[in-house]
Each structure stands twice: as C-alpha cells, then as structure tokens.
C-alpha cells in the first residue's frame, strides 16, 4: 500500500522531467510595443505641455511679477531703514549713548 503511494508520489514529482518549454503567444512584440507607447508616451506628452508657448509665457509673466514685487519691496525696505536709523539716532540722543560728554557728565555727577 505504502509502496504504491510512494510510487505514485515519485511519478507526480517526475512529471515535469523532459517537459517542453512554453512558448510566448504570437504577436507578443506588437502587444508589448502598444503597452510601452501607452505607458511611456504620457511622460513625453507632459513634457510637451510644459513647453507649450502659453505655459512658457505665463511662467515668464509670473517671474516678472515676482521680480517687480521684490524690487518694490526692496525700495520700501530702504525707506524703512532710513526711518529706523532716525529713530535710533533720536533714541541715542535721548539716552546720550554716543555722546562722550554724557559719560563725563555721569562721572562728574558721581563726584
């Protein structure tokens, strides 16, 4: 009984010995090319969309606007800087920070 079963198992295990190799179905290359065109072509389409004149001009306009905004902000910044320095000067004058006499005055005052 066991012998029969073992023989059967060996027969099953040997069933792939000497089998022929499976061949690819016909026209595989045509199907492969079609799939590649579908999968790879969209990348090219995306790139060409980026290079379209309308997109390029819009991108250029955005860059010009950003530059103009930065330049204008820079001018305002300069104005702010001058008003800031005025404030600092008035503060320094008030507390006599840059005034050498102020130190002397303070020293004399201690005396």
């Amino acid at each position, binding site marked *: 009984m066991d012998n029969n079963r073992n023989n059967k*198992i060996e027969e099953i295990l040997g*069933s792939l*010995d000497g089998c022929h190799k499976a061949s*690819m179905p016909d026209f*595989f290359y045509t199907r*492969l090319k079609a799939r590649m065109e579908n999968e790879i072509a969209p990348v090219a389409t995306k790139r060409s969309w980026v290079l379209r004149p309308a997109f390029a001009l819009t991108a250029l306009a955005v860059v010009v606007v950003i530059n103009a905004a930065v330049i204008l902000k820079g001018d305002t910044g300069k104005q702010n800087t001058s008003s800031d320095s005025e404030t600092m000067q008035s503060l320094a004058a008030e507390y006599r920070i840059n005034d050498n006499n102020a130190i002397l005055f303070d020293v004399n005052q201690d005396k």
Partner: protein
Amino acid sequence: MNELELIQGLRNGDEPAFKFLVDTYQDRVFNTAIGIVQNAEDAEDVAQEVFIQVYRSIHNFKGESKLSTWLYRIATTRALDLLRSRKSKKRFGFMQRLFGDGNEPLHEIPDFNHPGITMDRKENAAKLFKAIAQLPDNQKTAFTLHKLEDLSYQEISEVMKTSVPAVESLMHRAKQNLRKILEKETD
C-alpha cells in the same frame, strides 16, 4: 549581434536592438513566469513588465552578469510580486465577504495545465504545480528554474545571487516539502 553590441544598442535606444532582445529572450522569460504564476495571461503580463523594465533600466545594468541572468532575475522577482498582489487581493476579497461588502463568491484557482506537458502527464503535472504553489518563494524559484528552464545549479545561484550549496539546499528542501504536500493530498 553579440551581447555587448546588444547592450550598447539598447543603451542607444535602438529599436532593432530591443526587438532582437525580445525575440531572443521572450520564450525564456515567459516559460519562467508561467511556472511561477501558473497562468498564461498573467505570465504574458509579467513578461511585458520585464521587457519594459529592461528598456527603462538598461543604463543601470553594469554587465557584471550575463544579460540572460539579469532577465531571469527580473522575471522571477516580477512573477513573485504578482503572486503577492494576488494573495493580498484574495485576502481583501475575503475581508469584504466577511463584512458583507462583496457579494461575489471567491472562486478557487483552477488546476494549471502547462502547455509543454504531454497529455499522459497532464494530471500528475497539475497536482505537482498545485504543490509547487505552496512552496516558499526561494524554493519555488529554484525548483522552477531547474525543472522548467533546465538551468544548472550554478546558473540558478547567479540568478538568485547566492552560492551553489545554498541552491542545492533549496532544491533538497523543495523536494522534501513537495513530497510532504503530495503525501497529504494522496491520503
């Protein structure tokens, strides 16, 4: 066209070189994939993915191994990936059925008949393929490459990036496991 010329042609994006590659290796890739996924349509899908990957990543191929070794490696990896995604879909389907979302019943995959098997061996081969499907991935790969593609242990070790003794051990364990599975089936 020798292998170096072929690789150079592929790197240059030559279509004749790519066609030559497909014509030369399509049967080997298909036969390897069909042994693992056990379905002709899925095996063709895997083969398409293999050649697309080769087309895209030929610049990364360093030429340290043979082109055929690289192709076998991609084919086995892709085929095993497909099995994994099939398993996770099956699990998801089971969960859906469990929670009452999916009304469709789950069907068992029918017995696989390899096209290269003669009529008198078809029944036994179908049982063996059913058992092969239950093997761990590395044993399944080694067994399929050896039995269906007639690769030597040396060639299998190069495909699997391992040593020859490791392949011998994989084959020994694969046969032991297959015997156990078949014993259960025949009880």
